[in-house]
């Protein structure tokens, strides 16, 4: 799971297009706090970004960029530093930020959004409620997508769909990782003939296995494909992207064979499964503070985050990481988390069934 995200960052064409900067002027809260009081508090203080992953990965590098730029937008201009508290796919950090670490607004958590999905699934070890976090915003976004090697002869999704479909071997990590869950949910929602090869350690080994034709295909996000795994498409088109989550397919030459998952999903329930599995992807690199932080500081931090997202210097620095910046402010992030965590019980049950370890198809 961790690797999945970090490799995504690593990928990328230099000078990748900024897909879009969905910004409003902060969560309509710019006037609702006393800037002087907040500035008095933050002046001379250290704000710590607690990263749930080890140094060197995508979470770490982007957090260091945030640390470089966020402070100047917070009233009182505190120094912002990064601390790494890796463990259990950032679950350790998520729990710490939620309760054990100070709730005075000097601790900002940078955790994996897949944890929200795990909360919905009733995963073990979760000691937080994603709805009670005060989200500041997120930096990136993606859509689940599945690609299959050209040598299989499969060029259209319908060839691997339904009872008469052909079986393809798809690479997966252990159940619970983003890649594996995306693959399993696509299989369940669209009735795809996926045989899942569980057990790869991260997305890079899966891509390598795809190149050496040990497996037939892989699911990750469309954005990861075009940013990190360019070599699957150029100079020779080795894989065909068959399906991309969402209601429409991006206008891109490499997506010419792809269909939009929501458009071909047979039922409303199938669409809900796709939305749930896709929700964490929508809010990559999210930042949050604990539930008991004073309201004025939350508002100040949310405003600072939104301003940072619009800051030219930050955008220029972020572009260098190669990952497209798709900023979301607090409101948008809250909406996505709320939608995910209020999925109806039968959808949750169906998701659980879909995500059980089953090689298949």
């Amino acid at each position: 799971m961790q690797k999945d995200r970090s490799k995504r960052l690593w990928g990328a064409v230099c000078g990748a297009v900024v897909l879009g900067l969905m910004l409003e002027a902060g969560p309509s809260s710019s006037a609702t706090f006393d800037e002087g009081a907040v500035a008095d508090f933050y002046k001379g203080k250290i704000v710590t970004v607690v990263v749930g992953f080890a140094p060197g990965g995508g979470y770490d590098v982007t957090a260091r960029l945030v640390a470089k730029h966020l402070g100047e937008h917070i009233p009182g201009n505190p120094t912002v530093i990064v601390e790494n508290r890796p463990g259990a796919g950032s679950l350790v950090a998520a729990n710490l930020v939620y309760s054990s670490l100070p709730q005075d607004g000097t601790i900002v958590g940078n955790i994996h959004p897949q944890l929200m999905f795990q909360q919905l699934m009733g995963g073990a070890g979760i000691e937080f409620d994603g709805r009670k976090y005060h989200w500041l915003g997120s930096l990136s976004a993606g859509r689940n997508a599945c690609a299959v090697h050209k040598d299989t002869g499969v060029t259209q999704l319908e060839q691997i769909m339904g009872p008469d479909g052909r079986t393809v071997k798809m690479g997966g990590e252990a159940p619970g990782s983003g890649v594996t869950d995306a693959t399993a949910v696509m299989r369940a929602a669209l009735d795809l003939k996926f045989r899942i090869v569980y057990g790869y350690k991260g997305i890079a080994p899966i891509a390598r296995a795809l190149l050496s034709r040990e497996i037939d295909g892989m699911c990750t996000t469309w954005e990861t494909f075009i940013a990190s795994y360019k070599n699957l498409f150029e100079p020779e088109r080795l894989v065909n992207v068959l399906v991309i989550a969402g209601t429409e397919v991006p206008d891109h030459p490499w997506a010419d064979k792809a269909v939009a998952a929501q458009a071909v999903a047979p039922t409303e329930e199938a669409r809900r499964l796709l939305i749930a599995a896709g929700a964490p992807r929508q809010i990559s690199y999210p930042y949050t503070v604990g539930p008991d932080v004073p309201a004025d500081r939350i508002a100040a931090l949310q405003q600072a985050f939104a301003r940072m997202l619009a800051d030219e210097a930050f955008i220029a620095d972020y572009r260098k990481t190669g990952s497209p910046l798709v900023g979301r402010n607090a409101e948008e992030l809250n909406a996505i988390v709320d939608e995910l965590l209020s999925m109806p019980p039968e959808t949750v049950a169906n998701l659980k069934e879909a995500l059980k370890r089953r090689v298949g198809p």
Partner: protein
Amino acid sequence: MLEAAASALDNLSACPCVLGVLPHRIGFLFVGVLMGLSLGAFPGLGGLTGLAILFPFTFDMDAYAAISILIGLLAVSQTGDTIPSVLFGIPGTVGSQATIMDGYPMAKKGEAGRAFGAAYTASMIGGVFGALVLAVSIPVLRPIISAFATPEFFMMGIMGISMVSVLSGSAPVKGLIAGTLGLMLGMVGLDPQGGLPRWTFSQLYLWDGLSLVPVTLGVFAIPEVVDLAIRGTRIADVPREAMKGVWTGIRDVFQNWFLMLRSSAIGVWIGFIPGLGAAVVDWFAYGHAAQTERGAQESFGKGDVRGVIAPESANNAKDGGGLIPTLAFGVPGSTVWAIMLGAFLIHGINPGPELLTTRLDVTFTIIWSLAIANVLGTAICLLLTPQLAKITMVRVTLITPVVIAVVFLAAFQSTAHFGDLISLLVFSLMGWLMKRFGWPRPPLILGLVLSGILEANLFVAILAHGSGWAARPLVWLIGILTLASIAYGMAQSRRTRQKSSNRDAVVARRKLAFGPASLFTLVILVFLLSALARAWQWPFHTGIFPWTVAGIGVALCLIQLGSEVWTAAAPAQREQGGLMDLPVDRDVPAALVVRRAATLFGWILGYFAAIWMLGFIISTPLFVWAYLAVYAREKQRAALACALLVAAVLLGVFHYLLKVAWLPAVIGGPEKAIVETIGR
């Protein structure tokens, strides 16, 4: 290709001539080398830490300069890591665990200088060799990589685990048990097939598995510190005149040139295979040397310079190998290379076929940087060696608390979690007991690092290839190579044993006996059984590996226990003859050993408790001072000086530079006050 190589050298020197004015990119390379050496020399830190910190600062550099500084750093962290390995028996990075096996005994014999000379020279030639192999293999890279998939990775794991047989020396059963224990410890965490927690005891800390650094520091470093304190002398127990020099070491490397080349080749190979990486490369080379070198079964582990040359040439050579998948596929072979890949991308270098065709100049810049960095790093280290070797003449009481503090800080770097420290403590005790009772420790570490590789790849191989995985030609080739090297090693050891058994015939009178050594074996048996009991309910794909390994472990333990209880032919002394592990001093009376060890472990526990209560920042200098002034009765001035030195490193390196996430202490007020005063 040659043109590209030449123009790459120009790129690196940033001037149209190869030997021009002071080239600023070489300057960057030099800076990277200095950083890499210092980070490597500090236990627990390494190339990865440095890359992560340095990486954001390279955003504004030009591409060649950025690559130079990063490659410089990466290339030599495995050179600097020799320093603590040889001086204190503390692995500087996970890549130099095997170096301590003979490097540290050499330091004890007063041959620290020689060990350094050999290690640096081997590192340099290994590193350059790795770069060369990378250069000449460019045309054939892609097909080779494509031929390798999970079945072959699994077989490489098998080859690695077969090293257990040779690394166990004359205690094969104990070695195998240690190996199975290692394999089981490697299974702690979420399993790769079902994602279920195995033996995690509801601790999130254990979900990702045991961290390698605290375990290795516990198994190797603390036992050496404890034994040093028990002995109470200086590290080098010979007078200064006997210290053999650097030049001898350099000569040793050239005398053993073939071993060095073989080890370098192993290094490139392991580096090239994704997933094996730094933690096993040195053991592969060390095991290979132990298997193939004449008389190695007797002399390894007692300060044989060949035991230093093999791992040191391999661990630098692996970087050349690690570059292969990164460059050719754009798929990094390890985390370190993932960061490098990020750096390449930021600076407009897209890995993939172009790097091997139209942008060869970039590839050669990388290769040149790698080679030059290795030469620079070695030169610097050789200059420092005479000073470093003097450390072995320092009084042991002064060294003990400082080294313990460093080990604690190093272990804590792993995940900044209390679990790192607890893991360090548990494995310290275990490592020390293993050492005392004649259990070889390398198989434990080998099992730990190979466990995941074996399990994950076997499952994937079966799921992806069906039973056809076993029919692949490369699988057979690796299998045959493995069997051949086991057979060769066995033949070698039989020859050695015949010789030694003529010398001192062992009294083999059978009688019933149950001593502390057997109690230790019994504890391991109980441990294995209870682990097995916990694993009973797991689903098949989660449990099959743990069940098999634990089952084998239980059977071996019974055999071992039986042989210990029914034959009492002074087993410890018999096994010391060819045990492939650091030797134990037997001159100190047992009662004194127990008393001194208990005292020292008491101090270590006290330090741990102090960290828990007061936090790292206060406890560390306090511990150093208290140990020196109260326990060792050193002069107040010396005690304070050592405490201040440790405090300076703690604050300078860990607090300000690395921005370590300190643990919230029980009585956190004082530490918080300090942190707020000094800032960050």
